[in-house]
């Protein structure tokens, strides 16, 4: 099992959800986060006081998938999230030791 953690542009959340749903993935967790990589922030001015805002709003998508489907899912996700500009985000993939469905104690891939 692998965990996919993708940091994407907020306006790409719906296209990514749609793309994953189209290949039969409908379990995921979404968090509103702030951050930046190479993307520069912007300047805000309040009554002459300037603020540089460099932590920008992003969406973090987390989902755990079977090893067999990993590449297919990554392709769908990155294609849907891509604009080709700086700020599109990043994807990280981790090994997962165990998964449990709390309702009936299913273990491993059966729990996904």
């Amino acid at each position: 099992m692998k965990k996919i953690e993708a940091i994407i542009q907020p306006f790409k959340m719906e296209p990514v959800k749609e793309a994953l749903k189209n290949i039969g993935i409908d379990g995921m967790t979404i968090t509103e986060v702030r951050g930046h990589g190479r993307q520069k922030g912007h300047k805000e001015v309040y009554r002459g006081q300037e603020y540089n805002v460099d932590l920008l709003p992003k969406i973090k998508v987390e989902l755990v998938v079977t090893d067999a489907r990993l590449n297919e899912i990554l392709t769908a996700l990155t294609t849907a999230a891509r604009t080709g500009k700086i700020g599109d985000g990043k994807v990280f993939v981790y090994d997962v030791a165990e998964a449990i469905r709390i309702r009936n104690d299913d273990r491993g891939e059966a729990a996904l």
Partner: protein
Amino acid sequence: MKVWTLLVFSVAAMAQTPQSVDAKLAALDTAVKSAQSAGDNAWMLTSAALVLLMTGPGLALFYSGLVRRKNVLGTMMHSFILMAVITVLWALVGYSLVFAEGSPLIGDLRYVFLRGVGIAPNPDYAATIPQQTYMIYQLMFAIITPGLIAGAFAERMKFSGMLLFTVLWALIVYFPMAHMVWGKGGLLSASLGGKFPCFDFAGGTVVHITSGVSALVCALYLGKRTGYPHEPMKPHSLVLSVIGACLLWVGWFGFNAGSALAASGLATSAFVATHFGAAAAALGWIFVEWIRTGKPSVLGAISGCVAGLVAITPASGFVEPFPALLIGFLAGIVCYFMVTLVKQKFGYDDSLDAFGVHGAGGTLGAILTGFFATNAINDSFKDSAGKTLPLGWVDGNAGQIINQLIGTAIAWGLAIVGTLVILKICDAVTGLRVTKDQEIDGLDLSQHGEEGYFFEA
């Protein structure tokens, strides 16, 4: 209209006996007076409610949107609690100290506990409305004025200190100043025998200079907020501030047009001047901001409108519509530079710009009133022969500018000295600033044990 009614009535009455004519004329006289009183009282009660609207939702929203999220409730409380505290103080002694005839500096105690303040009008101030209407209307001014100061000590003042400060400030600064300008026999009274008649229609000196200058003293005395100006202290919700500013704009019609104390042509004129001043100031502020920073901000537009409302306040019952536009436009520009360049240069932390907007805008308005006041708008000032007197520079009375400067100087002096003394007292009795830990936690949690926003609930 009144004359026609009388005429028709008189012609109809001619056929009747003289006695019944007299009786009917007397009845008519009573009816006319009662009709005028009904109209004036309706407008003045409405105005009183409008002025309270400026504090409750208006100022509370305007200021609380400008602070950080952790101080939203504490800042709202700075406005809201005044609606309670000042009301009680006003009933006990405030009304008497301001409006009883006493010395030129302060009223005597004849109206303490509102003794004798009933339904009968007080002809010295407003002959057509119950004195209680006048009393409650003036109370609303006393409520909002200390509320304006809160902009300078926002996000760092102890609640107990703020309460004591407010009570003392009303007693030592506001009540004397209001008596001097508006009270019978006051030193600066324009219509009731003042030595230096200073035109202040709705409170340029009494409300805005006193509060704005006191705000600067508070900001200097309390010191900067922890982290200012290095840490970001962005307004947490300009949405609240926009709603607040719009409520202030609407409420200000009660403040200025209500100061005519009647549903009269003068009220209309003040209403128009108020609106024009606000509009021109919003534009003045964003034009200069647009040129200097490249963007016309929403905060700039609403700050400009408040600056214009402040500056037009003393002038509103004295000036024609075009000078009102000019006064507003200038106020928008001047106040923009006060809260940006001047504040940055001197480095004081007037957190929400109470001095930059109310102190500067009030001073500008008080002085410009001396230029533009005209008896074409306000003909209530007459010499002993009943001839209408020239008012300001535009009427050929340049000397009025000196009187305006005297009123302004007295307001500044009283605000500086009074506020310094009060701060010393509060510092010794309750303390003024919250501790550094409490400041980091925010006023909502440290002073009130609450949070403004709790989304999980």
